[in-house]
C-alpha cells in the first residue's frame, strides 16, 4: 500500500540555521502519526513545509505515491492536506461561518452562504462540535476556537490533517475531548499528523511515533514497540530524570506579598492570597483566566481599582512600578517580547531597563556606563547568556538566551519577591531547566516566588502551594501535594468537586 504522505530528503534552512536536515518520513493512510520533539527541534518548520507556508531548499513530498509540488497553502489544499495551527488563524471580528469559508467561498463575487451553512451544520452535528456558525470568534472559548479550526480543515475536504501542538492551550478535559475527536476523524478514514512535545499524549493517541531532535529524525517506532523512557531519551539526547530537582525543606517565613480583595476581572469575585518568604506559589490556570491581570496588578502596570496589595508589610497599592522594583520586586513578564525585552536594542541597553533608577547605574541623572558594563557583563556570564558581546542586539539571540538575559537583569538585583509569568514558554529544554533551577534557588535563599504558568508539570514540580485561577476568580488554594493532576485539570476548567460549595 502506498503511503498517504511521504517526505523525502527535506532540508530547510533559515540563514545559517538548518531547521530540517534531510528528513525522510512515511505516513500510512488512516493512521495517527505523531511527531515528537522539544521546542525548537524543527517540528513546526516541517509542518509548514508540508502545508506550503515554507519552501524547502531540497527534497520532495509525495501524496498517495505521487510527487506533489506544494508552494503555497492553496497547493496543500489541492492535495487535501489541512493544518490546525498552534496559534489559531482566526479573525476575531468575524463570524464562525465567515472564518471557515474564507478563501474557499464557493460562490461568485457576491457572498452567498446558504449551501455552505447547511453543509457545515451537518459536519457540526456529525462530530458533535457544539459550534454556532453565527457567533463572533472573539466570544468563543479556546476549545471552541480549535473546533472551528478543525471545521475549517474539514470544509476544505482535507484527508490528511496536521495538528500542531493542539493541546498546548487546552485544559486536560478539553484535551481529552480533542483526542476523541481525532480518533473519530481517524475512524472516518482521515490520516492524522499529530505534532507534540508531550510524551504521554503521543503514546496515548499515536499509531506510529517519530522523534525529531535538532532538525533530524533520530527515532521512529510503532507505538507498541516503544516506551516513555525510550522516547524521552531520544527526544533530549541524554538520560533525563523526571522532576529531579533538589530543594531545601519547606519552611516558609513571614508573608512577603499580601493581596487582599483585588479584582482581576470586572464583576468577578476579587482575589485574596499571600506568598511567604521561602516558598513558591504556583498559579495554575488556562491562559486568559486572569493571569495577565494578576501579574500586571502586582507589578503595578495595571492600576489597581480596589483592595490592597502589601509588599514586605507596606501597602504598595499606590506605589509606582519603579518604587516596587526598588523595594525588591522582580518581574519576568509572560509576554517576553512585548514587556520583557527591546529586540532592537543591545544587551547592555536591556540590562539597564528597570534598573535605571539604581544608584550604581544612575548618579544625578547620568548613566554610569563603566559600572553598568561591569555589572552587565558579570551577570550575563553568570546567567549563561550565550552572546558574542554585550553590545549585541538582543533580538539576534534565541528565546532561551533572551529569557536568561531577563533573569539576569531581574535576579541580579537581589529581589525579595519574584513574579514569574510563564517563564519557560517557548524555551528549549536546556533553558527550561535553567529557569527552574534559578527559581528554586531563589526560593531556597528565602525569597518568595509567584510562578504563573499554564504548564501543569511546571506547576506541580516547582510549587510549594498552588492556587488555581478560573475566569478571574480563585478556584482553590492549598498545599501542592493535596492536588492531583486530575483535580487540577478540573479546577482549571472551572469545575469543583461534587459536594463543594461555590
Amino acid at each position, binding site marked *: 500500500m502506498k503511503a498517504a504522505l511521504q517526505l523525502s530528503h527535506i532540508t530547510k534552512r533559515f540563514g545559517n540555521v538548518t531547521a530540517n536536515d534531510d528528513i525522510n518520513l512515511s505516513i500510512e493512510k488512516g493512521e495517527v502519526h505523531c511527531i515528537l520533539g522539544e521546542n525548537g527541534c524543527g517540528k513546526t518548520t516541517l509542518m509548514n513545509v508540508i502545508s506550503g507556508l515554507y519552501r524547502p531548499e531540497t527534497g520532495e513530498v509525495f501524496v498517495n505515491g505521487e510527487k506533489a509540488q506544494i508552494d503555497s497553502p492553496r497547493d496543500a489544499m489541492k492535495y487535501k492536506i489541512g493544518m490546525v495551527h498552534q496559534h489559531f488563524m482566526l479573525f476575531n471580528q468575524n463570524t464562525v461561518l465567515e472564518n471557515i469559508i474564507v478563501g474557499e467561498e464557493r460562490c461568485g463575487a457576491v457572498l452567498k452562504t446558504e449551501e455552505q451553512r447547511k453543509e457545515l451544520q451537518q459536519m457540526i452535528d456529525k462530530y458533535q462540535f457544539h459550534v454556532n456558525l453565527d457567533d463572533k470568534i472573539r466570544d468563543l472559548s479556546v476549545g471552541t476556537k480549535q473546533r472551528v479550526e478543525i471545521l475549517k480543515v474539514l470544509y476544505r475536504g482535507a484527508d490528511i490533517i496536521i495538528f500542531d501542538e493542539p493541546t498546548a492551550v487546552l485544559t486536560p478535559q478539553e484535551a481529552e475531548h480533542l483526542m476523541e475527536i481525532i480518533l473519530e476523524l481517524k475512524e472516518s478514514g482521515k490520516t492524522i499528523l499529530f505534532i507534540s512535545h508531550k510524551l504521554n499524549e503521543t503514546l496515548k493517541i499515536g499509531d506510529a511515533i517519530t522523534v525529531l531532535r535538532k532538525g533530524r529524525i533520530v527515532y521512529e517506532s510503532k507505538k507498541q514497540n516503544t516506551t516513555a523512557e525510550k522516547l524521552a531519551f531520544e527526544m533530549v539526547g541524554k538520560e533525563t530524570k523526571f522532576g529531579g530537582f533538589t530543594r531545601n525543606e519547606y519552611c516558609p517565613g513571614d508573608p512577603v506579598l499580601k493581596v487582599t480583595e483585588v479584582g482581576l476581572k470586572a464583576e468577578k469575585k476579587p482575589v485574596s492570597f499571600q506568598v511567604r518568604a521561602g516558598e513558591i506559589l504556583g498559579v495554575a490556570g488556562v491562559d486568559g483566566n486572569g493571569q495577565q491581570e494578576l501579574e500586571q496588578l502586582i507589578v*503595578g*502596570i495595571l492600576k489597581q481599582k480596589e483592595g490592597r496589595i502589601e509588599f514586605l508589610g507596606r501597602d504598595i497599592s499606590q506605589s*509606582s*512600578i519603579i518604587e516596587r522594583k526598588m523595594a525588591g520586586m522582580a518581574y519576568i*513578564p509572560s509576554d517576553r517580547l*512585548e*514587556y520583557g525585552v*527591546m529586540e532592537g536594542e543591545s544587551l547592555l541597553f536591556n540590562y539597564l531597563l528597570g534598573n*535605571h533608577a539604581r544608584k550604581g547605574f544612575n548618579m544625578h541623572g547620568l548613566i554610569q556606563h563603566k559600572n553598568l558594563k561591569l555589572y552587565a557583563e558579570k551577570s550575563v556570564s553568570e546567567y549563561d547568556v550565550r552572546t558574542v558581546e554585550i553590545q549585541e542586539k538582543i533580538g539576534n539571540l534565541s528565546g532561551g538566551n533572551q529569557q536568561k538575559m531577563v533573569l539576569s537583569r531581574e535576579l541580579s538585583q537581589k529581589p525579595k519577591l519574584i513574579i514569574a509569568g510563564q517563564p519557560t514558554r517557548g524555551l528549549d529544554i536546556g533553558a527550561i531547566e535553567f529557569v527552574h533551577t534559578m527559581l528554586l534557588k531563589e526560593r531556597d535563599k528565602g525569597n518568595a516566588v509567584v510562578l504563573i504558568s499554564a504548564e501543569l508539570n511546571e506547576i506541580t514540580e516547582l510549587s510549594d502551594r498552588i492556587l488555581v485561577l478560573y475566569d478571574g476568580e480563585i478556584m482553590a488554594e492549598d498545599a501542592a501535594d493535596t492536588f492531583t493532576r486530575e483535580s487540577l485539570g478540573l479546577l482549571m476548567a472551572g469545575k469543583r468537586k461534587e459536594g463543594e460549595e461555590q
Partner: protein
Amino acid sequence: MKEKAKRNLKKLTFPTVTFLLALFISGIVLAVMGYSPLKAYRLIFLGTFKTTSTMGNALANSIPLMLAGLAVSLAGKAGILNLGVEGQLYIGGMLGTVCALFLPVQNRILMLFLVLAVSMLGGMLWGGIVGVLKAKFKTNEVVVALMLNYVAILFTSYLAAGPLKDPDAAVNQTAKIPENARFVRLIPRTQITAAIFIAVIVSVLIWFVFQYTVVGYKLRSVGSNAKASLANGIQCGRYLILSMCLSGAVAGLIGSTEIMGKYYRFTEGFSNDIGFTGVAIAALAGYNPFAVVLVSILFGILNAGSLTLGREMGVSSKMFMVMQGIIVLFVATPYLLELFVAWRRKKERGKS
C-alpha cells in the same frame, strides 16, 4: 575594534548608497524634463565652491535645516514622527518677533537670549500639544501635527496681515525688528550668523542627552518598545510628551534664528517647507545628531544649488523637494537595497 569599524562602515553605506541612488533618479527626472543632469549637478556642486559667498550661503542655508533635522531626530528617537516642525517654527518665529519688536531691552545678548527663549517656549507649546494628545487621547500624531501646521501658519499669517502688519508693506509682514535683536553676520556678504553655533551646540547636547543621561535613556526606550518601558517603570506618556516638547523647542528656535539672522521681520510663508526637509534629513541621518549636521550641510548645498539651477537653467526650485521625496522614499524602504545587494551577489556568483 575591527568589528566596530566594520559596523560603522556598514552604517555609512546605507545612507550613502541611498543618497547616490536618489541623485541618480533625480537625474532621470531632470533628463525627462529636458535638462542635462550632468550640467545640473556640476552647477550645484561646483557652483557652491566657487566663492566664499556662495559657500557661505550654502552653509547659511543649512542652519535651519540642521535644527529641523535635529528636532525631527529628537522626537524620532522617542518613536514619534514629528511632522509638525513647520507649525512649531512659525509659532516660535512669531513669538520671537513679537518679543524683538516690543521688549524694551537694549543689550543685544540679553535681547537675543530672551527672543530665543520665548520662541523655544512657543515651539515647545505647539509640539507639546501633539505629545499630550497622543499620550492622553491616543490621537494619531501625524494627522494632529499636520492640522496644527495649518492652524499655526494661518494664525501667524493673520497676525502678520492684521494686528502686526507693517502698514507700508504690500505683503503680509511685520515691521522690521530693531538692530539689537539681530544676529551678527560672521562673514560679510553671507548670511552665516552665530546661529550656526547654536545649531551645533544643540546637536552636541542631544548627543550628550541620549548617550549619557537617564532621561535620554528613557526617551529612547519609549521609542524602542513602549510596553516594555511601561513594565519597567518608565512613564511612557510623560516621556512622549517630553520628547515632543523638546523637539518643538528646537523647532521653535528655527523661527527666531531665521528671522533674527536673515529676514529681520516675520513674513507670511517665510519657511518654505524647512520642517519637511527636516524629516528627509533626519531620515537619511538615521536620527544621529552628528550625522544630521553633515547631512544638513549637504542639503544646504543642494538647496542653494537648486536656486542656482533656477537662475542658470530655468529649473524650478521645486526640484529640491522632488529630491527629498525620493530620498525619503528610499530611506523608508531599506529592503530595496537588500534586494539589490542580493541580486548583485547572485550575478557575481553566476559569473564565477
